[in-house]
């Protein structure tokens, strides 16, 4: 590829003199690169207008046949104008403004745009007909992957680079009364009318300037544009977003808007909750289907007019115009003014038709239905319009086909109250009629918005109770004048040609599909992929429907359209993603952990220390001396009220009626299907005051679950639940010397075993911090105290423990050491040693579950489980070879590879110097002493013995009771 640095910048062979409506800044010239060569443009040019001004007319190669493609619509939808710009693929180059230094390249060409090797596909076209994929490459089966690799090379698109940086994308919310989508004359008029009626209005325009088709119209049109634009500007209640597009309308007028022209961000998604939506996208000009209709030089009348009037680009030298409407006639006048020779005007209203365009690399001649053949390099067609009704369809409206106007028209009867349509999508008429209609609709949209606001805001708790009531909104609807629909001949196709340019689907393909039995428009779409390309059917759908209708002998109305789905316009993943909002949670001691080399562990939203270098050493220190662990994420619920004991009795499988003040108790919760839900200890701090702990991961779930039982089943119970998980920093001080360490820092609590025994709770002062809650419990199996202290002092107390315990050899320990300690002690972890179907008895809770309680959550299923027997059981296991740690999830098998259980937890025990496990096994294997076979991931089988206890260290629990 040539390096542009050596090439001369290519000038402006086709640039016209100044045009009255032009949007380019002739005083400045910028340079960019096209396929490696330098080109010049004026600010305001689109990439394509600059290239067209330089005389370029081929911008891409087509999907299947690699035919050269040029300008068709000269706007966002243009199927032949998708280019690679730097690392951005599929840029709509007829919409994107040129920027200095842009590196623009054609896509899908090899080795070059002018000479494309894959163009031989064109010769093979008759064999690449509809559905050819389905009919071949069937046998031999083993060759399909090779065929597929070739197919994937032919993909018609740009490239993404693995080095693309994720730019700064952003979002915001907006709550306008009225959202107007489309800033043409009708959209502007509706916005102004709504604003003048008191509404806050958001006006969204896809192009870079307001004005719609007035921008490329005559002097009168431009004068009206200027007048309306000035009205919009002077209304303070209107916010205008240009180069922005509504991407979808969802339930209750929830609307996504993509905003592209911002200084601080690449793109911004505005999420709008509008009270009224006014849909004003205008009309999309429809291409005509005939042989050769995709040749560069065949373009729509709106494309020719845009080029001339907005960008001062001459679309060709000698033109044929096929005109069925005033837009086509206006194009003739524009072309003449631009100095384009008009070779012929074929007037479709008088039955004239184009049947073929010929040429290599571009139009060279055109054949009319009467057999005449005219040499030209430009064919402009004006054969009618498509109403882009997507947003209305997303609101539930079904468009109906009106043959006399040759287009689908929205059916207002099936449109929800909050959605109205103005402008070309609603009807035709003079500019004055459109403005009058839009004015009425704008006022009506404001009225409906005010009514809705009155209904929605009336009872909001956030409004002052004594505020004056909002004035009742006007109730009489604004009379909306009927818009006429202009008659238009039905022109869809004359001969076979391309229907979907981006998918390379021809009318012949559609007819073939129908003949093969794919005879509804949806099946045709799926079989041929017509309408599924980047223009999203806006150019192709109606022609597709017309051709399917003709092929099936049904009318267009009977055939109907395919479903228009969001997005209305393609939207970048970056804009949809926006900023990443993933809350994370830190304990107050996190700065210390980070300073002391903790390896972070992501546990849900929490970031926790997994270890501080050597988890096995941490375990040994806890067993022999003292360690401290940050257990702040443990869920904590403050429970107050006279009925707390009732609540605990309902939620836990064990009994709570007789828990004395100062005592804590372990409890397990099951759901009503008997499946283990959560566990933890709860302590009684006062008469009507309890502190409940839950697992870290279960904290939110348990809180919502508790509230559910209280609010829906027992609203009469007097209990208040306050989540206090992060109101407390939680530190577990564990190990034989923990009492000694704590004794040095604690005031107001007698730590002697006879005063503060196992499973008791006290409150007191630790390291000068008052209101600390101390639980004497033993998840690690050692003498240990769990301190819950006011969180703001967490770091202070932690640092004091470390300092004060230095001579005792205190170490911090992390989650991994805790997992090992608890496994040595045989405590199960909900969600690891149990799963979504593990009922209480399976988890070994038989002695805890009190079926003699009148009721508790899960009781019936647990009673039936006990009665049924034969359930799997959680057991302790010791591998016979103590050096082999069967990885968690290793399967326990019996003869023939039958699965009879699995290892749920396993570690090398630093205390015992051997492998230890917990596992679930079928009931027949649960007896202590049973030998089972464990299949390791590497395929080896090892033996393990079921033990009498889950605990392998101190099963009697003597160490924690000292």
């Amino acid at each position: 590829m040539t390096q542009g640095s050596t090439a001369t910048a290519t000038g402006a062979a086709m640039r016209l003199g100044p045009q009255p409506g032009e949007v380019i800044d002739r005083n400045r010239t910028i340079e960019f690169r096209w396929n490696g060569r330098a080109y010049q443009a004026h600010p305001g040019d689109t990439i394509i207008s600059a290239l067209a001004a330089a005389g370029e007319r081929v911008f891409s190669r087509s999907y299947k046949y690699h035919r050269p493609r040029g300008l068709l619509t000269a706007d966002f939808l243009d199927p032949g104008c998708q280019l690679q710009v730097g690392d951005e693929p599929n840029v709509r180059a007829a919409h994107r403004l040129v920027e200095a230094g842009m590196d623009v390249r054609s896509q899908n060409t090899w080795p070059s745009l002018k000479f494309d090797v894959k163009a031989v596909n064109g010769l093979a076209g008759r064999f690449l007909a509809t559905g050819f994929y389905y009919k071949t490459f069937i046998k031999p089966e083993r060759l399909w992957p090779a065929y597929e690799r070739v197919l994937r090379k032919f993909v018609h698109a740009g490239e993404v680079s693995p080095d693309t940086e994720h730019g700064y994308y952003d979002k915001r919310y907006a709550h306008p009364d009225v959202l107007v989508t489309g800033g043409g004359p009708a959209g502007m008029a509706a916005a102004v009318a709504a604003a003048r009626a008191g509404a806050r209005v958001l006006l969204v325009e896809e192009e870079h300037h307001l004005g719609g088709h007035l921008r490329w119209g005559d002097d009168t049109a431009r004068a009206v544009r200027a007048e309306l634009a000035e009205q919009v500007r002077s209304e303070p209640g209107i916010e205008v977003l240009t180069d922005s597009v509504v991407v979808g309308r969802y339930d209750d007028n929830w609307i996504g808007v993509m905003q592209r022209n911002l200084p601080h961000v690449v793109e911004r998604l505005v999420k709008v909750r509008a009270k009224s939506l006014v849909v004003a996208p205008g009309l999309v000009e429809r291409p005509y289907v005939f042989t050769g209709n995709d040749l560069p030089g065949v373009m729509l009348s709106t494309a020719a007019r845009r080029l001339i009037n907005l960008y001062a680009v001459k679309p060709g030298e000698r033109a044929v115009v096929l005109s069925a409407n005033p837009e086509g006639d206006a194009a003739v006048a524009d072309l003449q003014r631009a100095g384009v020779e008009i070779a012929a005007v074929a007037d479709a209203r008088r039955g004239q038709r184009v049947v073929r365009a010929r040429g290599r690399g571009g139009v060279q001649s055109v054949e009319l239905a009467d057999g005449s053949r005219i040499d030209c390099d430009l064919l402009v067609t004006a054969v009618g319009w498509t109403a882009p009704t997507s947003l209305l369809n997303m609101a539930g409206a079904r468009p109906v086909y009106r043959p006399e106007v040759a287009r689908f028209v929205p059916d207002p009867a099936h449109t929800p109250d909050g959605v109205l349509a103005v402008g070309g999508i609603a009807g035709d008429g003079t500019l004055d009629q459109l403005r009058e209609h839009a004015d009425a609709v704008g006022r009506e949209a404001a009225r409906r918005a005010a009514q809705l606001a009155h209904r929605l805001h009336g009872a909001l708790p956030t409004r002052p109770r004594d505020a004056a009531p909002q004035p009742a909104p006007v109730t009489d609807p604004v009379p909306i004048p009927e818009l006429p629909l202009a008659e238009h001949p039905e022109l869809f196709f004359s001969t076979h040609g391309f229907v979907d340019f981006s998918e390379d689907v021809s009318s012949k393909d559609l007819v073939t599909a129908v003949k093969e039995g794919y005879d509804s428009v949806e099946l045709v779409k799926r079989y041929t992929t017509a309408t599924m390309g980047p223009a999203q059917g806006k150019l192709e759908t109606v022609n597709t429907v017309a051709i399917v209708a003709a092929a099936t002998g049904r009318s267009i109305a009977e055939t109907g359209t395919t479903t228009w789905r969001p997005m209305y316009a393609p939207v970048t993943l970056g804009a949809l993603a926006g900023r990443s909002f993933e809350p994370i949670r830190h304990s107050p001691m996190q700065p210390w952990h980070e300073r002391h080399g903790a390896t972070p562990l992501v546990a849900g939203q929490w970031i926790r220390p997994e270890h501080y270098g050597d988890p096995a050493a941490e375990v040994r220190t806890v067993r022999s001396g003292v360690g401290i662990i940050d257990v702040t994420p443990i869920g904590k619920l403050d429970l107050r009220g006279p009925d707390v004991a009732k609540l605990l009795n309902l939620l836990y499988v064990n009994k709570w009626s007789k828990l004395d003040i100062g005592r804590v108790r372990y409890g397990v919760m099951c759901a009503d299907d008997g499946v283990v839900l959560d566990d933890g200890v709860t302590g009684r701090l006062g008469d009507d005051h309890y502190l409940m702990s839950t697992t870290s991961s279960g904290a939110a779930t348990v809180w919502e679950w508790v509230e559910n039982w209280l609010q829906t089943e027992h609203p009469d119970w007097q209990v208040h639940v306050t989540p206090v998980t992060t109101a407390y920093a939680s530190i577990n001080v564990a190990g034989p010397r923990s009492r000694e360490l704590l004794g040095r820092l604690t005031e107001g609590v007698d730590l002697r075993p006879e005063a503060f025994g196992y499973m008791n709770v006290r409150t007191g002062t630790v390291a000068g911090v008052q209101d600390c809650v101390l639980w004497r419990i033993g998840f690690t199996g050692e003498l240990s105290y769990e301190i819950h202290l006011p969180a703001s002092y967490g770091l202070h107390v932690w640092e004091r423990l470390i300092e004060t315990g230095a001579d005792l050899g205190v170490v911090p320990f992390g989650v991994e050491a805790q997992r090992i300690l608890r496994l040595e002690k045989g405590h199960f972890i909900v969600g690891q040693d149990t799963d979504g179907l593990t009922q209480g008895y399976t988890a070994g809770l038989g002695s805890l579950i009190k079926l003699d309680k009148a009721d508790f959550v899960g009781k019936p299923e647990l009673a039936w489980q006990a009665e049924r027997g034969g359930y799997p059981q959680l057991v302790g296991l010791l591998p016979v070879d103590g050096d082999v740690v069967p990885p968690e999830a290793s399967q326990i098998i019996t003869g023939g590879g039958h699965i009879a259980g699995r290892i749920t937890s396993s570690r090398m025990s630093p205390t015992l110097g051997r492998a230890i496990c917990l596992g679930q096994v079928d009931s027949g294997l649960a007896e202590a002493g049973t030998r089972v076979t464990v299949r390791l991931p590497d395929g080896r089988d090892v033996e393990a013995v079921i033990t009498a206890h889950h605990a392998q260290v101190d099963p009697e629990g003597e160490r924690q009771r000292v």
Partner: protein
Amino acid sequence: MSSSNNGTGNRNGSRNGHRPLRRGRRYSAWSLLQHGLSGADWPVTFRSHPKRDSYDVVIVGGGVHGLATAYYLAANHGIRNVAVLEKSYIGSGGSGRNTAILRSNYLTPEGVRFYDRSVKLYEHLAAELNFNVMFSQRGHLTLAHNDASLRTMRWRTEVNKLQGVDSEVIGPDEVKKLVPYLDTSSTTRYPVLGALYHPPGGIIRHDAVVWGYARGADAHGVHIHQKTEVVGIDVEGGRVTGVRTDDGHRIATPVVVNCTAGWSTLISDMAGVSMPVQTFPLQAAVTEPVKPFLDTVIVSGTLHVYVSQTDRGELVFGASVDPFASYSTRGSLEFAEGVAGHVLELMPALSKMRLLRQWAGLCDMTPDYSPIMGPTPVGGFYVDVGWGTYGFKAGPVSGEAMADCIANERPPEIISAFGLDRFEAGRLVGEKGAAAVGH
């Protein structure tokens, strides 16, 4: 049950006047060449017929399950007097709305066996049906971002291996080799700790599967009635006697099979059979095409997203079902935002790709994320429903098993765990554990 159909006798009514089909015109490169040269029309792939007054079996739902059931009833059991009733066009429901991912790396032995059979059938489906369904076995990766999901991956792997299914847990470096665009650095919010790699998994052309079965069933004499909605099911003395359709027909039949997704409760209600089912939308989306860079299917259970790239270059995205039950297929902006955010968490270089289209299908979720298959308390009324998000993967094996179940009047072993009676009996299937990391 025996076939009362006259087999191939009524095949001459082809609309376009072609000679009668012999299992359709064979498709091949040779026939493609012939047609290319001669310009002749291809025969009709599947025909429409007038409705008969009675059929031996009426299947409700013209998706892959219904059509496969019809195909195997005819092909494997000689039961050809079968009607498939489809309220819209064939494949318009879940079959045409899923993300076309196939795999068999489930959690429970019964699940693995069942889906493995489905993958095996899919592997040879193109040849069986003489219709290229473009099954692309480019591998399937389920990423683990935390200990718990890594443990579940290992669990699935070990069960898979014991059932002879190719699965292994691989580390971040190997993952990076398979998917160079993936951010496998350890500093991301959701670091990739490893993945369950399942080489036989991949994607398929979902519509082609529907059309292939329709063509095969049609060739065996099955009647496919599109745009025919069932509005009632007649039950007398505890047995099905017929169905009524929206065009006023009553079709007599001793056997009705509910093969619908999204509508299974409504159809079962017509027969008076209540269901442990809730219907949720499942959304999907597709981007504009870019040059292929992603071979494997990527799934992240933690981030609720799955991604694959089609042979057309589009990325296809899916997520978990919507957060509340609904029969709406309208799609939501939150889905598009969420899926884009999660895809960029995994592959940050894709921020400039554009989402082109989003849609939704309906999923009938059961309490244990496993299907409901087989007979019901109403005689002759069978169900093949409750597929949650896994229905398309199970199309062939379900058709084969349901055909067997109907022909032999008892559920074959491969679906014995999936009976409707398991819920009242408290025998839920253990697939619940793997559901969080599905697709």
